[in-house]
């Protein structure tokens, strides 16, 4: 069971090895602890809607496991725990100008970071109109702290994987927050204890943001190993106040990972069959739903599937220019795409849903033996598409329109002639809404005006935007600097697609959508559809070929089947 797997991991994290280590004598003063205002802004952070479409969790075993065990070692650990796979290398403290001196007035979101002990020169970070244009990777890592704006945190965590793997980033963070503590003597211990606690609070808050925005990163064992070592540090006596927060963070993370696993189990391959006999009875008309009801159900399915797509999947799947090669020759070149960190396929599953819906609509139409009936099915789908538009569900709308434009459906002249004039008119209007002139100007305007709770952006447009945003500029600028402008652009596109989740705003997430109607759910998710050649063959059965080109096509189809 998935949840037990993760639970055991976390449990292990909270119980295992408490290596007591007396800190060595200090060689330099410890850094100033972060001010409390650095943390305060985040305490009321809403949790993010991530995979809440399922009522996935009704087993209290895990809770009792985590809560009951708490951190059992708390009484035995008297000193600072130094454990885990992190190399705590104390870095040289160099007096340098504070970050704020290089900030333009427009930037408020970045308070002074007390731990900026590397020289902050102008070249470390560059701003234009208050926006970060480029920066060194280390500067960005240092800016990743509780006081940072949510959109910065989201953007950087999202795009960090173009430069380093999540576990490498977490390791960098740990180094940043834990440095110097292995160099203190007994005299400073008391002071230090407080400082270390403040550091830990900051780290746990960053971790909380990270786990709520990108929970799937924590599927990686290397990331979890680091989380374990952080948890172990929290086990020390003086860490009591941060323990609850750490434990809540882990619980929420576990919930999300468990929900993910259950969702993955619910995904079945799209069934495509090659003959009409293999299809089950019934179609959109026998379903007995009004177009409004069906559009609502479609939107629930869309939002459900979308809620499980990790934001990082967009960058992992679409952004990299060079997918890694297994050849040894590639080892020397820098691979942008850390495929070994990609452990989810929810984006692919969501894209496949789009295809499935198109085939479902086309199959539904072609199933009808009589042209009059097929015309009614078409009308019903067009009306459903219209209601999808009203809800702002552009993804379903596009899938329906694509289906109606598939050649097996489009060529049915007799059928189309039997649809009502209103139907044709509506279809043309809907087509106009998603047609691509001016970089989809109409669609983008309509999306901006759509109700946020039910708006489902066009995934294909997002993918295209991301592709070109990635191709249009390099990830790294001269001097190995991070092209943060590009990161911001990628982040903007991902946030637009996941707007219903409100990843980068402080608004509370939308409530879970209403649960779907079971029979409709089965109809939309489980029902087999015809393959493409089968659709063509059936289409020629319904209305015979009209010219020599179609006759040739039919001959070829029969020959290959």
């Amino acid at each position, binding site marked *: 069971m998935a949840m037990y797997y993760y639970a055991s991991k976390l449990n292990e994290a909270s119980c295992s090895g408490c290596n007591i280590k007396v800190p060595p004598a200090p060689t330099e003063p410890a850094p100033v602890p972060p001010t409390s205002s650095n943390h305060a802004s985040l305490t009321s952070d809403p949790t993010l809607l991530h995979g809440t479409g399922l009522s996935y969790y009704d087993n209290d075993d895990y809770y009792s496991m985590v809560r009951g065990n708490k951190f059992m070692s708390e009484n035995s650990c008297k000193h600072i725990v130094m454990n885990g796979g992190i190399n705590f290398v104390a870095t040289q403290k160099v007096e340098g100008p504070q970050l704020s001196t290089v900030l333009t007035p427009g930037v408020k979101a970045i308070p002074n970071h007390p731990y900026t002990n590397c020289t902050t020169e102008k070249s470390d970070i560059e701003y234009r109109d208050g926006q970060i244009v480029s920066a060194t990777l280390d500067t960005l890592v240092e800016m990743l702290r509780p006081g940072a704006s949510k959109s910065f945190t989201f953007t950087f965590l999202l795009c960090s994987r173009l430069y380093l793997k999540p576990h490498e980033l977490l390791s960098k963070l740990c180094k940043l927050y834990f440095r110097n503590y292995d160099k203190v003597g007994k005299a400073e211990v008391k002071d230090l204890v407080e400082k270390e606690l403040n550091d830990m609070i900051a780290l746990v808050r960053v971790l909380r943001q990270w786990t709520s925005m990108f929970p799937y990163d924590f599927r990686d064992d290397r990331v979890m190993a680091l989380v374990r070592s952080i948890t172990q540090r929290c086990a020390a006596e003086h860490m009591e106040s941060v323990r609850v927060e750490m434990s809540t963070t882990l619980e929420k993370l576990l919930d999300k990972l468990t929900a993910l696993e259950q969702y993955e189990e619910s995904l079945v391959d799209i069934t495509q069959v090659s003959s009409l006999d293999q299809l089950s009875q019934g179609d959109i008309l026998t379903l007995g739903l009004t177009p409004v009801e069906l559009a609502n159900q479609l939107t629930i399915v869309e939002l459900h599937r979308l809620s499980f797509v990790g934001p990082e999947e967009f960058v992992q799947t679409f952004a990299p220019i060079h997918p890694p090669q297994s050849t040894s020759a590639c080892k020397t070149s820098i691979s942008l795409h850390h495929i070994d960190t990609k452990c989810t396929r929810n984006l692919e599953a969501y*894209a496949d849903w789009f295809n499935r819906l198109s085939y479902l609509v086309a199959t539904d139409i072609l199933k009808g033996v009589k042209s009059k009936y097929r015309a009614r099915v078409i009308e019903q789908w067009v009306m459903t598409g219209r209601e999808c538009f009203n809800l702002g569900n552009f993804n379903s709308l596009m899938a329906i329109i*694509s289906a109606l*434009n598939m050649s097996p459906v489009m060529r049915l002249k007799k059928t189309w002639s039997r649809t009502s004039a209103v139907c044709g008119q509506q279809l043309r209007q809907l087509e106009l809404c998603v047609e*691509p002139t001016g970089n989809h100007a109409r669609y983008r305007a309509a999306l901006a005006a759509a109700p946020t709770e039910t708006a489902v952006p066009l995934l294909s447009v997002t993918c*295209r935007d991301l592709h*070109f945003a990635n191709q*249009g500029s390099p990830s790294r600028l001269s001097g190995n600097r991070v092209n943060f402008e590009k990161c911001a652009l990628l982040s903007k596109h991902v946030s637009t697609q996941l707007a219903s989740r409100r990843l980068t705003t402080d608004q509370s997430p939308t409530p879970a959508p209403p649960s779907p109607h079971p029979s409709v759910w089965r109809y939309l998710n489980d029902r087999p559809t015809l393959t493409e050649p089968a659709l063509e063959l059936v289409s020629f059965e319904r209305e015979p070929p009209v010219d020599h080109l179609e006759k040739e*096509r039919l001959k070829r189809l029969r020959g290959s089947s």
Partner: protein
Amino acid sequence: MAKTYDCLFKLLLIGDSGVGKTSILFRFSEDAFNISFISTIGIDFKIRTIDLDGKKVKLQIWDTAGQERFRTITTAYYRGSMGIMLVYDVTNEKSFENIKNWIRNIEENASADVEKMILGNKCDLDSQRQVSKERGEQLAIEYQIKFVETSAKDSLNVEYAFYTLARDIKAKMEKKQEASNPSGGRSGVHKPTLNDARKPVTWLSRCSVL
């Protein structure tokens, strides 16, 4: 409006994601662009007008990149396409194997007389090569399609590929025109709307893709 060209060809780049379709397109098309251009205006297709035997031929090149997985959408790109570049990556065996699937896809969705050409891209990365030039040639012979290895990075053979495809389309059109209109007239000069006329004209078939 005065026409600045004699014919318009709609071309399409297809192939697996990551094979470098967009790089080929950027390499070939005239105008450079930057990141803000993309975010504000976006790209529907790229245009380049070339000179073919004294005729101005406007190439309108569509790129399916980023949308490879949306079957019913990529299919819509095929309509009205007169030439298709099938692109694979010589450092990626899988992308080469998939060329056959893309050809099947073309047969199912594109007009029967569409001109095709296979491009083995990224041939500058010789040390990482997984697909030999001979295998590419072999496949091309099997399907009777022209083939060339390209490098968008080093600008190798990209021009040649587009000129070759455009020339083949032009030759086919002229042949067709002569067959239907043997008494002559101004052969070689075609209306830009000489797209596949049998398909009903909707916004999808007008070549606009999502």
